[in-house]
């Protein structure tokens, strides 16, 4: 979000370059009115597809879920809830029938929030690190020119082209107790049930699936680096390792950071892979339950509480993205600036 607000004021500085020859100052009132008309459809569409769901979810998150009228056995509207839905998740508080707030017992979704939070960040950290390292390696291979390069590039992309649901089902069979992996390794690991085995089953499957995406984005960055720089490096007697750390890495950094940002945001909302591969199970039952899986579980038990959870999840991802873009935005600008000045350091 902040990328938009920060980048926007900079646009005019680049505009004069492009429209340099034209007359300036021609923006009169009629233009302004036209601009309003032209923008309106976009604003309306934004309002429907972004504004409405967000606002509606926030309103719902302050409503109690429907309760049961003991006399008729029918559901009745819950009424205003204040922050109790948020307390339910963040403080893991459950309100009993008599109105006393207590810690949620195991088996209640409220008891799983921080567990799911930890699991989601655990997956994000591991998958992004693995995918970045492996993706970099693949990108370097794809960047070389050799016979059959087209074939290698296509082959590397195959996992990414398979729909996640299909990937998850494929790995489900691979990880089955009598599956391929256990017979290949000669082990008897319960991949979808043990606490750590199930976590790593998800990480392995996700890494397999998404590394090509990282590789592709990094490859795009690598192809922007001119060969002359490497030639100059070799002339100065830089070893291959030095070339990688002193030339490749700094120059590919902007593309790399964008790729990492995409992956982090993607991994934070991971749903389909664990939902199909382990149904959020493993360990004592919730080792692979991510925030998104928790939201979907809760939707079936009550929309309003689920709205509060979605809002919390949204804020968490927003904060991560904000921190990242702040940090990333500064870097992108710096590197480009220094690149233009020819400072390679």
């Amino acid at each position, binding site marked *: 979000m902040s990328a938009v607000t920060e980048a926007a004021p900079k646009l005019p500085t680049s505009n004069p370059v492009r429209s340099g020859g034209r007359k300036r100052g021609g923006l009169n009132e009629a233009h302004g009115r036209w601009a309003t008309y032209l923008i309106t459809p976009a604003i309306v569409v934004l309002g429907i597809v972004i504004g409405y769901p967000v*606002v509606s979810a926030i309103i719902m998150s302050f409503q109690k879920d429907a309760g*049961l009228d003991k006399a008729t056995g029918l*559901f009745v509207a819950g009424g205003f809830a204040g922050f109790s839905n948020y307390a339910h998740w963040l403080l893991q508080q459950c309100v009993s029938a008599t109105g006393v707030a207590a810690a949620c017992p195991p088996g209640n979704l409220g008891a799983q929030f921080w567990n799911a939070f930890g699991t989601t960040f655990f997956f994000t950290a591991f998958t992004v690190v693995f995918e970045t390292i492996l993706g970099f390696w693949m990108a370097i291979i794809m960047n070389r020119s050799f016979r059959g390069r087209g074939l290698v590039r296509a082959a590397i992309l195959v996992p990414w082209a398979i729909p996640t649901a299909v990937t998850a089902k494929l790995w489900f069979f691979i990880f089955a107790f009598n599956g391929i992996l256990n017979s290949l390794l000669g082990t008897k690991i319960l991949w979808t049930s043990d606490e750590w085995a199930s976590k790593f089953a998800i990480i392995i499957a996700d890494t397999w699936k998404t590394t090509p995406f990282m590789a592709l984005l990094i490859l795009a960055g690598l192809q922007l680096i001119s060969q002359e720089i490497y030639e100059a490096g070799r002339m100065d007697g830089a070893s291959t390792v030095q070339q990688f750390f002193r030339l490749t890495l700094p120059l590919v950094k902007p593309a790399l950071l964008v790729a990492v940002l995409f992956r982090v945001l993607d991994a934070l909302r991971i749903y389909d892979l664990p939902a199909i591969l382990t149904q959020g199970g493993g360990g004592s039952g919730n080792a692979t339950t991510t925030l998104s899986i928790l939201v979907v579980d809760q939707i079936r*038990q009550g929309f309003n509480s689920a709205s509060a959870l979605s809002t919390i999840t949204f804020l968490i991802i927003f904060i991560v993205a904000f921190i990242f873009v702040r940090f990333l935005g500064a870097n992108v600008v710096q590197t480009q600036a220094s690149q233009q000045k020819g400072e390679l350091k």
Partner: protein
Amino acid sequence: MNKSRLAAVAGVAVFGLALAGCSGGGTAGGGNDATANLTSRGPITYVQGKDNSNVVRPLIDKWNAAHPKEKVTFKEQSDQADQQHDDLVQHFQAKDAGYDVVDVDVVWTAEFAAKGWLTPLTGKMKIDTSGLFPSAVKAATYNNTLYAAPQTSDGGMLYYRTDLVKTPPKTWDEMMSMCSIAKANNIGCYAGQFAKYEGLTVNASEAINGAGGSVLGSDGTTPTLTTDKAKNGLDLLAAAFKDGNIPAEAITYQEEQGRIAFESGKLMFLRNWPYVYNLAKTDGSSVVKDTFAVAPLPGLDGVGASTLGGHNAAVSVYSDHKATAKDFLNFLLTAENQKFFATQGSLAPVRMSLYDDQELITKLPYIPTLKESIDNAVPRPVTPFYPAVTKAIQDNTYSALKGDKSVDQALKDMEAAIKSAGS
């Protein structure tokens, strides 16, 4: 510039608010809808999940030929239970008059009834339920009112290897004592569905009910899990996992993994639904084709209590032609059509007399066993908070079976979680 951007953001927000105001919450209404259009007739729509074995279409064709002015249209949903549930919820929330008769899983009936979406089958809508399994009728009843017509039923059975076991075990202890035979043959002894999903709720409540306990009390909301009987029941499963009578990998089993293990000769006893019977007899990969049979589930000291499966047919309160809808429910319940469910789709009929039908027994040899199973079956908790209740059972049973927590603690947590669900 800043001002105009602010205005745009404000505009979007106001627009969103306005839209949000339009949408209603998901709570009960239906007081008037439930009593409207009770006598009107006309074309209706029947909604059901994927009709895999082509049962529904021939039945509807038959109905339409007899009722040219009150034709039934078939709306087919996906074959995923969760998607069917969510599709129904969305259409009910939209008060869609286009969903007249809906097919609901037995465990959703109470939820939909409590939301005020199902027409009570009383007064003008009353249907005749004599001759149907009492347990199936109970599963369609909420708050002492019948809200749906039982349509098809289902019960668990014990599949056993006739080459290893001459007479099937009658009680759980007897079955456990036979496990030495399995050990001698180097195969697993017993398995059911123990992965953390709906099947675990089925198996856990079978264990609890089979030992004389119950998940919920007679009022349908108060959990009754911290009793000795419930503990005895769950203890049986936990102990069998501990001493290896249930192989460790069974904690990952859903219906299919168990079936595959049994068909490949790796299991001596398997608790599963009737659909396994024909597959195990005909699958090319099945090595037990001629060496298995079925028996009722074993309980603590006699026949066990299977969990009831199956589907109910209900009339939406928003239907415009409820008299036709009611006739269609009765049509689904006739002996002739119930038999068609069995012969065409291997779906267990809800009409008891059919289980003595010689033609049916020849075609589906497991039918007498299934009857005994459904006769003793107990519906899963009939509660509008079913999603929360099943979650509480699954999570805590799973921990207990894995040995992460004691059976006592698991039942205590289960009880607390079920209590917190209803608030």
